[in-house]
């Protein structure tokens, strides 16, 4: 079973901190694009069974219900869906009761709202097109119609002290899922010029852990993600378990049959050849193993030794013993009989875990196979 990702690369306004693949648009998503995506799906070569469908962006809530229907129909044509999780990301500005009703009717099971903040100052700083009142309305409209809904929040944006109130309001609305991202000042965005605003590391971590304090009853199941028990995003878990998925739309990645491939990023390139790839990389076994571990250590649950052995046919210690022991000694992960899990420091210094793992597990074997 694979996951299906659909990238809707349009936004009504372009947020100045964002480095996703997106293009400005005034009205609804053009038919030409919908045609292209449907064509790409139909032509997909690979597994037939899928368990999750995820509309991401860009702004999928700019899809007219008819377009959404066409794409879902194309997915249904090509794949056998088994009790699928069908998620859509939505901009609070776009959410009206009618639209949410349409989503339900079309089989969407999960809605994720790009709230970011309940503070107008922060939303202004981020250059979002919605305000706090709109966000509240959207949450209400979605909560009424969907049991499984969530929101994204951003911390570290000015004014920084609005964060507590946003968290409190979020907790009160009782979504099932919350993603909490630290604001980054990406190099290729207008925000690069504002990098001086970035909070220092201590403040960043304080804000980061504040979320855990507010979101009682949630599990902090991934570095940046919280969920009520059993409400983890199944689609994103595919990424963190490094399992297979097919991506459609410009810039979307796929990982099927050991090949990590990407669709052309520029909209025109994509529209000219839906299904073409701008990069395709066959990963070595060692690379897959390392990536799998790196991803697993973003999850609070870490990795089960038995799961590793089952997937790769050997004990995790044989491949990564040295690195894992070092990480345990540094207090970044902990080990028990069943599994390895990141510690709280392991969340804060998550990239250090990755750094310790790269060049480790695979290399001795690669050399041996050359000899």
């Amino acid at each position: 079973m694979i996951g299906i990702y659909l990238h809707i690369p349009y936004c009504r306004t372009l947020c100045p901190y964002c480095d996703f693949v997106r293009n400005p648009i005034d009205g609804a998503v053009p038919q030409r694009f919908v045609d292209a995506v449907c064509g790409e799906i139909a032509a997909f070569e690979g597994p037939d069974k899928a368990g999750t469908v995820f509309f991401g962006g860009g702004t999928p809530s700019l899809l007219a219900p008819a377009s959404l229907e066409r794409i879902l129909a194309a997915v249904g044509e090509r794949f056998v869906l088994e009790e699928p999780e069908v998620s859509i990301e939505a901009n609070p500005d776009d959410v009206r009761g009618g639209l949410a009703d349409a989503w339900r009717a079309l089989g969407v099971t999960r809605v994720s709202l790009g709230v970011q903040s309940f503070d107008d100052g922060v939303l202004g700083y981020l250059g979002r097109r919605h305000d706090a009142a709109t966000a509240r309305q959207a949450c209400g409209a979605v909560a009424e119609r969907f049991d499984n809904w969530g929101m994204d929040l951003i911390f570290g944006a000015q004014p920084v002290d609005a964060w507590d109130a946003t968290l409190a309001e979020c907790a009160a609305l009782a979504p099932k899922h919350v993603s909490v991202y630290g604001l980054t000042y990406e190099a290729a965005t207008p925000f690069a010029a504002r990098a001086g605003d970035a909070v220092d590391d201590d403040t960043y971590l304080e804000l980061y852990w504040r979320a855990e304090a507010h979101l009682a009853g949630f599990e902090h199941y991934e570095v940046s993600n919280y969920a009520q028990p059993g409400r983890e995003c199944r689609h994103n878990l595919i990424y963190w378990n490094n399992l297979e998925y097919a991506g459609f739309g410009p810039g979307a990645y796929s990982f099927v049959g050991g090949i990590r491939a990407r669709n052309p990023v520029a909209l025109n390139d994509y529209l000219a050849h839906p299904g073409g790839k701008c990069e395709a990389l066959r990963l070595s076994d060692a690379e897959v193993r390392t990536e799998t571990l790196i991803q697993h250590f973003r999850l609070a649950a870490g990795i089960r030794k038995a799961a590793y052995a089952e997937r790769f046919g050997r004990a995790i210690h044989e491949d990564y013993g040295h690195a894992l022991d070092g990480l345990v000694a540094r207090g970044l992960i902990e080990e028990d009989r069943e599994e390895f899990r990141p510690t709280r420091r392991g969340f804060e210094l998550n990239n250090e875990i990755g750094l310790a793992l790269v060049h480790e597990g695979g290399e001795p074997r690669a050399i041996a196979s050359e000899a």
Partner: protein
Amino acid sequence: MTTPIERIRNFCIIAHVDHGKSTLADRLLQETGAVDERNLKEQTLDTMDIERERGITIKSVAVRLNYRAQDGHDYVLNLIDTPGHVDFSYEVSRSLAACEGALLLVDAAQGVEAQTLANAYKAIEQDLEIIPVINKIDLPGADIDSTRRQIHDIIGLDADKAIMASAKAGKGTREVLEAVVERVPQPRGERTGPLRALIFDAVYNSYRGVIVYVRVKEGRLAKGMKILMMSTGRRHEVAELGVLTPGATPTDSLEAGEVGYLICNIKSLKNTKIGDTVTEAQRPAPKPLPGYEEAQSVVFCGLYPAVATDYEELRDALERLQLNDASFHFQADSSDALGLGYRLGFLGLLHMEIVQERLEREFDLTLVTTVPNVAYRVVGLDGQERTVENASKMPGPAEIQRIEEPYIEAEIICPTEYLSPVIELCKKKRGIHVRVDYLDARRCLAVYQMPLAEIVLDFYDKLKTCTRGYGSLEYRLIDYRPGDLVKLDILLNGEPVDALSSIVHRDRAEWTGRTLASRLRKLIPRQQFEVAIQAAIGSRILVRETVKPMRKNVTAKCYGGDITRKRKLLERQKEGKRRMKQVGTVEVPQEAFMALLRVGDEQER
């Protein structure tokens, strides 16, 4: 066809750095047609990448020129272009031994400088005919009369017959060639006697093995001849020999008086000694030629492979490079912090930089270098004396009577208006005034004795700064003298790091310790745990600095395709980390081991 000995002239070009030797060589190559116009570039003979990038000559180069002189005869002129930088003066001495004459170039705008004097004296000592050439007369600042006077008054040469030249504009080239033919004596040497040829240089070529450059002093060297290297006792057969025009051009023989190259399947790199005498195995000469004094190392540093597994490769590279540059020495060494490596001795700081750079560049190695130091002499409690070339190997104060350090005598030539800052600088460097000579109305020569350690680090740069570039320096070792010296240790998280130890004068220890610790704080990246940096003399801690721990290093989002990009990024970071040295629990970047070098730049007190 062999050239009659009376039609051969062997000469070199000597001067202070940058006075235009290589540029004059270009003109001579051009004028005699040795290099056609297409292949001529600026400083054609500076072929090494480092030479071209830095615009200086590092290695002497020999070329054979064919010249029809005004007397109507065809001459063979063997030219050797030499380096001018003080560190490479041994190259000059070697080249001089292969010649009967020298062109002494003096930049008309700079006048006589320290290496002009030093190299001229070397040529006089070797009894060479010296032809003064006043160069760069095209420069607006050229002062021909004064330069002429300086040549006469300071060096003691007859400057009336000095040739006026502009190597850049091609003025004086013919005059130079004619003067070489007329004034440089023809080589002496019996062509029928037993062979004696001086090895004045050698290079390693990966296809041909060792290529040996020789000056045949007596007898005849021929292809197929069985030869004997007199000092190493090795025997070989001459597989190829020839002349450099400047490309290698094979010939059947080289006669007394000639300069050329020979190849004889020498594969082992250690077995060629520059300065050795080549003779015929069947008919050996009774005595070798005088040969060369061993180049004396004045600065030493540790060299360690950044990746421990490159140790063998480093040894290989050192051996190969040494064939090309016999003037640095190395021996195996080890450090607790840096593992297995080598201790190298150099002729000076520039020489050190160049050897390092060549090792990294030509042999594709990544190296960690420790701060250079001089060799100390330590007198133990039992009165036993030994030499310590590595600061970290200095015994504790309780085990020794005294430390002696090498002293040099420095000769500094500068315009008189800069004399007082020069004296100031020498004083600060613990210099002992010997004398000041006024060379002429505008220039003086200051002679100081001072600890070598004070000049190896940054003296030269400081001298250039305080004289606006007009000061020049020549020095020679004189003796060892007791000094009030202490070993300054650096501790990381409480553990002394041997590779960061240095020997400093007691009065400067505290300041140096402070500066070094603060430099290290900036160089050592944040790590998971706090890093304490301490500078100490024995058990006395002078200063403590801390590198704060890394608080966070996390990517907020990691979905679909991000993972491969992230893995690659981490792999690159890990590559970078590999270049760091793990010292106990601390990762130390390579530059940290050189931090002391730049301590001198800091504002003092």
